């Protein structure tokens, strides 16, 4: 694994990279590298055995500079178009989790030709009537002085999942983990706090533009982005093979069940 900073338009972007093979761009979510952890989780390591995994930190996350001009998802999409140019990535596999999945879908509808294969894991981004995406900001406010149980419950199958407890402990966690969590919430507040809440109303009617083979993965018990969002992605993306449910997992399937999630993904990418 190596970390490095590249510069786009005068702003620093922090990137982790690992493995050899076809380029695979990974866009992170909340319980993830860059948004909690400094380095790879087991899921990323498994991917890196088969591909060149490239994971940039979103604007304002980890060591990527904050961009105060980010108001809407479109601003993040343009940020990533510049990252792709700087990395000279013209054709690549794209995997996004949660907010990262939203960004991935937005990139795919604009530049379907750049994406070889697309994987969305618990992706936000869609408006689905009657299935509001959860309020992660309120859950991130402490209960009973120091409990983050409801935050863990939103991001995982249960508040007691070992990875949930490691990444979002009660009280005060490891300082830099806490700062990264805060940075991810701060970026998210720019694009997902004010209505639209983590969605772009226009995205749904653009999904037909995606040409790449697509796999949608959802935790069987996602308490943050309801499963009907996964069903909607799977239905409206023309070349989507299936909505793969990881039984027992919550919103962070790749963290809760890295083996099965990585295997589904590798099988799909190798096909």
């Amino acid at each position, binding site marked *: 694994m190596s970390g490095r900073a590249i510069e786009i338009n005068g702003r620093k972007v922090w990137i982790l990279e690992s493995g050899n093979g076809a380029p695979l761009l990974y866009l992170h979510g909340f319980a993830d590298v860059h948004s909690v952890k400094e380095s790879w989780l087991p899921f990323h390591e498994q991917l890196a055995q088969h591909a060149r995994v490239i994971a940039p930190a979103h604007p304002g996350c980890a060591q990527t500079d904050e961009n105060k001009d980010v108001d809407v998802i479109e601003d993040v999409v343009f940020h990533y178009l510049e990252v792709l140019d700087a990395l000279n990535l013209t054709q690549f596999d794209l995997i996004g989790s949660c907010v990262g999945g939203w960004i991935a879908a937005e990139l795919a509808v604009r530049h379907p030709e750049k994406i070889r294969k697309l994987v969305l894991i618990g992706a936000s981004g869609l408006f689905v009537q009657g299935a509001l995406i959860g309020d992660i900001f309120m859950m991130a406010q402490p209960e009973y002085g120091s409990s983050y149980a409801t935050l863990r419950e939103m991001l995982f199958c249960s508040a007691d999942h070992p990875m949930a407890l490691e990444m979002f402990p009660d009280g005060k966690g490891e300082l830099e983990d806490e700062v990264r969590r805060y940075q991810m919430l701060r970026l998210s507040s720019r694009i997902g*706090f004010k209505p639209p809440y983590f969605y772009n109303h226009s995205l749904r009617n653009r999904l037909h533009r995606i040409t790449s083979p697509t796999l949608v993965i959802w935790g069987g018990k996602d308490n943050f982005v309801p499963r009907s969002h996964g069903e909607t992605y799977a239905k409206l993306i023309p070349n989507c093979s299936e909505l793969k449910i990881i039984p027992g997992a919550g919103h962070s399937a790749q963290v809760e069940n890295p083996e099965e999630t990585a295997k589904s993904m590798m099988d799909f990418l190798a096909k």
Partner: protein
Amino acid sequence: MKPVQLFCWHFMAYPYLAKDFDEKEYSGWVTVPNRLWDNAKARGLYQEYIDQLVYADELGFDGMVLNEHHQNIYGLMPSPNLIAAALTQNTSRGKIIILGNLLPLHLNPMRVAEEYAMLDQMSHGRLVAGFAPGGGPETFNYDVPSANTREKFWEAADLIVRSWTEDGPFAHEGRYFPLRYVNLWPKPLQKPFPPVWIPGSRSPSTMTEVAKRGYCYFLSSRSHGGETHRAQQEFAAVLEKHGDKYHPFRFGILMSTYVAETDQQAREECEEGVWYFLKNCLKGHLRREGRQLTYGPGVPYIPAAAWREYLKGYTPGRKLLGDVENWEELEASQSIIVGSPETVTRRIQSLIEKAKVGNLLIQFQLGNMPDHLARKSMKLFAEKVAPALRQGSLKQFNEEYPGMNFEQSAAALH
């Protein structure tokens, strides 16, 4: 030279909660179920509260203080300007301090500029214009994205003051509130413009922005241990850095008090209202119980580097004001000062001496405190506490700040 300014602050709490509210309900803020609102009981409540403020004016307080809150039982003033309008018609001497309108919650800051200008005219120049960014709960009330709250706030505040001082029409080419035609009718009465007060909780950036503009800094903390004195010193240092000088009327604090004939009687009379306030009104705001919305990573309005510094000194699960378990702990918090006129005078006097503060914003009505007790306490304060505080502070300020001009310095603007 003037003595300490004593203002009467009313929060207008919802006083009709059942005794088991704390046991049954998760929060007093944002999500507190509004089925608890009782129309039969609440009829006439606003009038009772307005009349208490009018009484403060009659008793010779230097002014009345209002503020803005939404969706809670702590303060029933989503629009303090409506209450202020009523006060312009029912009072004649005291300042009307609105602390403040929550600027990022307004679609267009010109609405605040206009309403404040109206209030300044309607009150014959008695308005003190407070601007506040709103805290955690308000972020959730109106879905204000936290990351740019502060920038939006200062753009709005500057636009409002510019609209009061510069001839229109002019175009405002702002990042958040671009407007083609800024042309205020009416203009405010006070020149160059009404005094501006800004609340803060010791953040260096807020102090700096306030200092740059020559405004009054109001410490929004409810507890007054060593922190109040430190805040004063920090603000004084920031002012020095900007070529300005501290004086007591650049600074204000919020405190609560209850005065009765004796210490014992004071405690007995106010205790129910005090506990109602601490356990119900502060639940969701300054209590660990339930979910505390005021500070936390879910309202990420300060930059990440500042958050890192904050975390270094942060103790998870620490006691907040509403977590005090007994009267002794409450006394130690220096938040609600209860006692005979002598006790209250001595304790507030010592606070003024240490914190060198010229604006005391005092809450008398606490929680579900009945009207007659709130009034009795206000009257005793006005007659038996205020004169000594005025006399003592005048002497102190004369010695410590000889020859200071205490008016708002217009030159410091921009």
